[in-house]
């Protein structure tokens, strides 16, 4: 289980418990947290679940794979610390992680 805080572009914070094995995108969409669309349901086909990850957490995440890299490459608001939350699977190690959403996913 990981306690994950999602921060909207306007600063509103949402903290939820994400079971191990569930992606950060799935948990956010299921809870209706604004700012993460996840239009494709996690198929890595839409790039509408981008989040910014603080430096100290980046190293704990799995490497960016080719598919994710490709999708990120087309995200208008991509920064160096951008990840697709559909590729981030919750684990005890990610307990306490804070991620920030862009102003818009489109």
């Amino acid at each position, binding site marked *: 289980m990981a306690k994950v805080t999602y921060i909207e572009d306007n600063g509103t914070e949402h903290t939820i418990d994400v079971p191990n094995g569930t992606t950060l995108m799935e948990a956010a969409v299921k809870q*209706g947290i604004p700012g993460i*669309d996840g239009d*494709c349901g996690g198929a890595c*086909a839409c790039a509408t679940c981008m989040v910014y990850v603080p430096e100290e957490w980046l190293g704990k995440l799995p490497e960016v794979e080719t598919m994710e890299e490709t999708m990120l490459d087309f995200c208008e608001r991509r920064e160096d610390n951008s990840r697709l939350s559909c590729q981030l699977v919750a684990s005890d190690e990610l307990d306490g992680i804070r991620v920030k959403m862009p102003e818009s996913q489109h």
Partner: protein
Amino acid sequence: MTNNYRNGPFHIETIRIEMNSTGQGRKMADDILIIGAGQAAAQAVQSLRAEGFEGPIRLFGDEPYAPYQRPPLSKKFLAGEIGYDRVELKSQDFYEQANVETHWGTRVTEIDRKNKRVLTGDGREFPYGKLILATGSRVRELNVPGFELEGVHYLRNIEDVKSIQSHFREGAKMVVVGGGYIGLEVAAVAAKRGIDVTVLETADRVLARVVDPIVSHFYERVHREEGVKIETGVTVSGFEGKDRITAVTSGEGKSYPCDFVVVGIGIIPNTELAAEAGLEVSNGIVVDEFCRTSDPDICAAGDCTSHPNAIYGHRLRLESVHNAIEQGKTAAATLAGKEKPYNQVPWFWSDQYDLKLQIVGLSQGYTEAVVRGDPENTRSFAVFYLKDGALVAVDAVNRAPEFMMSKMLTQKKAKLDPARIRDESINVKEIAG
């Protein structure tokens, strides 16, 4: 747990008295009722609250489940790789926090527009202020002799998947009727499970309705490489067996022995409720770009609608998640008093084996299909469909960059040079020149 929607109190039983022009008092319900509980409905709930609608929302679905994702049903869910918890769209908490009254397993049988109420199959009635019809679609059935035999299945909902899975054991014989996306996805999952699969298709190639022959022949090759038998030009004329199916027979006089059958020959929009209520229906419930039906108090969203699309210049009826989500947003905005027109390039996807097919746009009426990559010897390529030089659609197999780029180019109806599309030394981002 953070509360996303409790910005103000929601009144579930709000009734207000309004005076109409003749001065008579009339009870007016604020309630927004959503009929149908799929992807469009779940999105509409979220968007109604996000747009600031604070009145009562009631959600009706005839399945015993809360809204769930359908695309995985013919993919990972059928394969048993993910369970219900991973296809469920929203958590139970979500509906509680959004203060939505949910009625699962409840079919709406009539919309009484005169008295602004809906009637349900269990004999209850609910007043409404506004309605969203998100009734979706159902499978097209194959009415041939033997259609009622055990072992003949369709794939539309969770119960269908459970029935199909009950036949999954190595060496079992399955016939798939219909070489469309659903049929081919089911074939791929079953083949991986060691099932002996035969796909029967009426046309002379699979996916004939939606892709160029180049793509059809690619999928036929891959399925054959994976051990699936594909027979085209076959018209199914009947199912044989005593109680259980034992063979599929064709009009061409052949017999295909099998233990079970999955029929995937398309879907039909659920428009009866709307038609019986006198709403305009023509290949879907007719809506405008704001998802309004011919009754301004009633919106419709998702598979069940026929909607205008300015990019293609004609009406579309789409069977896709993207369409359901975007129309769910638009319908919610309209009923919350905002105007957010829906006018986008559609997109779809299909997963088979290690192939991720991503589709942008609609290729109907294309004048030229230009190939980037090698569909004959590899499993990665894209086909660009041009109509008089302008990009109208792309099928991208394991080609995410082509998919993402063509989403933008199709929206702009970009004129492309076929030579630049074919030239892989040109980065796809530079393809438009």
